[in-house]
Structure formats: C-alpha cells, structure tokens
C-alpha cells in the first residue's frame, strides 16, 4: 500500500486515491463546522479552538463572505482555505464582470469543487486539505442553499450538514432533529448541533447567519451566550419533565 500513496495521480489496485483519502483525514482533524438551511436564513457555525491569550481573535475569522450573498465555512487546513477563498472571491467578481449577474450558490460551489478536483489529477501537487460549507441565496430565485465540497472535488446540496471533528455525531444529531425552521429557530438548531461536540459557551463557538436582506451577519459572543443559555434551560426543562415522580408521592 505504501507504494500507491506517494503520487496523487496513481490509483491503487483496489481503486483508491490515497492522497485524497489522506486529505479527508486532515479534514477530520480540523475544527467542527456545521451548516443548517432554514426557510429564510442559513446558519453557519464553527468551533473555535481555545485562542491563545496573546492572540487577537478578530484576525482569525473562520466564516468568510465570498460575495454579498455567499458565505463559506470550512474544516481542514486553514492555509489551503485561504487560497481557495481568494480564488472564489475573484471568480465571484469575474462572473459579475463578464455576465453582469451575481453567481448562484451552485455555480461558485461547482467552481470551488472544480478547483479541488484539478489538484487531484495533476502531477507534483497535493489536494486541498479542506471541506467547505458554502451557503447563500440565489440572486434571481431568492432560494436559500447549502452546499458541501470535499478534497476529492465532489459537491452536493444539503438541508443541514457538518464537517470536521466529530462530524458524524453532529450529522446524526441533525438527522434526528432536523425540521424546516426559520429565523432564530435555525440558529438554535445549528448551535445545538455544535454543542453536541463542543464545550458550551460563546467563546468556543462562532456563528454567522446569512439572510437575503442583510447578507452575512456574525453573531456577537454575548448573543451566542444568550442563545446557549436558552438551549440549556430548554434541555433542563426537558430533563425535569422526563424525571420520574418524586419520592414523596410514592409514600
């Protein structure tokens, strides 16, 4: 097996591209990221690993906007992400320049995925080690969309998805609890999914909401703390309701 993972362009006998699979491993080590699509908003959330005391946390933005109506969050190698994000931003403006129309979410996802695929079929390069969650509103239909790409260059649309560390647990949670939501409910659902795998608290979570009217809005730490408190209260209430009747009544 060792012979087949050195060069990206070489298949193994059982049909694997090992470099791509190793890139997926890199993604699995990256911070947790979740995206939830609502009827009028799409929420992106990422786990913020503890920031060193001396670091200016404002310079580490994990949810970025590609255009006024498109945003992206990713898990994996952050430096690779910077390169892809730069190319995507240029493509957004280039598209506007040549066809006088903003990109659709699917178009820019296809572009990013295409870039990722190119690097799985070239000599001497390695694949991008990141999976991206791309959200936005289509400019003419106004329909919200959430797409995911991965290092192999495949992409698909999702109602809700997670990537990065412990993404399986988050996805399981979303599969069990997803329903069509709007506004604040969508935000809560995304935070609840993240809280499954992340220490609770505003300083460990970064949340951004994309709406048609306001574009991308990053939530303040205080706002996130407030919603987390709401969720904990709801959880506590649910637990209390499920608890067996108190001993007194059994006397």
């Amino acid at each position, binding site marked *: 097996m060792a012979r087949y993972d050195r060069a990206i362009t070489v298949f193994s006998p059982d049909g694997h591209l090992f470099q791509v699979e190793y890139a997926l491993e890199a993604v699995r080590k990256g911070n947790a990221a979740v995206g939830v699509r609502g009827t009028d908003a799409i929420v992106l959330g990422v786990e913020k690993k503890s920031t060193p005391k001396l670091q200016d946390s404002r310079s580490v*933005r994990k949810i970025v*906007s*590609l*255009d006024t109506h498109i945003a992206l969050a990713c898990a994996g190698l952050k430096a690779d992400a910077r390169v892809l994000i*730069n190319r995507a*931003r*240029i493509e*957004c*403006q*280039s598209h*506007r*320049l*040549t066809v006088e129309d903003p990109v659709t979410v699917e178009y820019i996802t296809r572009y990013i995925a295409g870039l990722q695929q190119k690097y799985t079929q070239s000599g001497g390069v390695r694949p991008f080690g990141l999976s991206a969650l791309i959200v936005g509103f289509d400019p003419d239909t106004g329909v919200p969309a959430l797409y995911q790409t991965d290092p192999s260059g495949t992409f698909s649309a999702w109602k809700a998805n997670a990537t990065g560390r412990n993404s399986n647990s988050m996805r399981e949670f979303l599969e069990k609890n997803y329903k069509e939501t709007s506004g604040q409910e969508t935000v809560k659902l995304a935070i609840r999914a993240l809280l499954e795998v992340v220490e609770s608290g505003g300083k460990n979570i970064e949340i951004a909401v994309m709406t048609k009217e306001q574009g991308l809005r990053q939530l303040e730490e205080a706002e996130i703390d407030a919603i987390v408190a709401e969720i904990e209260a709801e959880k506590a209430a649910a637990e209390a309701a499920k608890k067996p009747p108190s001993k007194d009544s059994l006397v």
Partner: protein
Amino acid sequence: MECVFGLVGDGFALVAADSSAVNSILVHKSNEDKIMILDSHKLLGASGEAGDRVQFTEYIQKNVHLYEFRNGIPLSTAAAANFTRGELAQALRKDMDNHLERSELKSLDLTPISVGIITSKFVVTTILAPSVGTAQPKGCIGNGRDSSIAGYDKDIGPSLYYIDYIATLHKVDKGAFGYGSFFSLSMMDRHYHSGMSLKEAVDLVDKCIVEIRTRLVVSPPNFVIKIVDKDGAKEYAWRETIKDAEEPTA
C-alpha cells in the same frame, strides 16, 4: 463633445457629466449614465468611447469590490485613484500583441485598452477588457478617455482626483474634461471657493451647464449630477432639456 466636471464642497464631492451617447453624427441616447458608483462612498465619472468607458469603469468597480471582500474594509479614495491610474498606465505600456505577464491585482484576466475614468475624484483614462472572447484592438490609446474619481473617506472627508487618458493623476478641488472644460473650468475659477454648501455647489454646476449649453457648438442636452458625502454616493439630479420620447402605446 463629452463634458465631465467635478468639485469638492463642504463635506461632499460632486461630479456632473453629460449624458449623450454619440456615434459620429448619430445620438444613440440622451440619458446615458457616465458616472459609475464604485462602492458605497466612491464615484467614477468617465468620458470617452462608450465601449472602452464601460469596460474600464466596470473593471475598476469589480476590483474595488474584490479588495473589499479580501480585506474586509473598503479601499480609500486615494488608493482607488492610484489603482485606477496604475491600471491606466499599465495599459498604455502594454504590448497588445504578445500578452505579457499581468499584475497580480488584475487577477481578472484583462487586456487593457484605453479608457478614461473619472472617479469622483479621479479622471482616469484606461480601459481594460476581459480577455474572454473580446476583440483586442491594436494601439493603446483611444480617443482620450478621461475620468475623475470622487470619494468620501471618514478620516479625510471628501476628495476629488483628476485622471486623464495618459494616466496623469492629480488631487484637485475642481476639475473638468472634454470641450466643456473650457467653459466649466473658467466658471469654476470665477465662482468656486472652498467649503461651498451643497446649494452653492449645485448653483455653480448649473452655471457651468448654462455656459456649456450656450457656447459649445454641439452641446449635450442633458446632464446628470451625482454626489458623495458621509451618507454615501448617490444620484443627485438630472438636468434635462430633451427627454427621450415615451414608447407609443399600441
């Protein structure tokens, strides 16, 4: 016959441009908007050949937007002016037949043509055309595109830059291009003083327009005035003598 001029007032900058689109002796339309809004607080007024003008101004606008997405903050007016001038200067020196290495900032694959842009503060004349299936004309200098860039920065206030078709860049309080400049500059020299109020400035613009209409042999009938102040760049008014005819109803 194109006239573009601008001035800086108290807390605002103003650009006025004629609005006729002309091809030799034919007037295509009289309500062509030649002042492009680059971003929330910048205007680019350009004169020159229509195709070149639009190509260039749109190219500058998209690059200004790209900067804002990449860096999270908008370009300053001075930076936008210098960028525009630089693009223009590069276009003038580019070898059109052999596509040489392009600058990193021009990540949009463009081949320069000449264009003049005027940002509410700058007048730039350079045109860049996307290389995607566009004809590449020989010769770099078009009919002398000029532009002026006007912008408002929170820390500096309003500013106006003059950029002409050979990439001259000047920061000015008042500037003008085209045949109309002979008349509007003289009027502005006489009546302009720094810190004019919006009303005074628009009166001055109207005076210039009257001069142009009276004294220029084939003067443009309609003008558009746009301003940029702390609240942003917006259209202020039209000065029309000829309204394009309404479509006849069936």
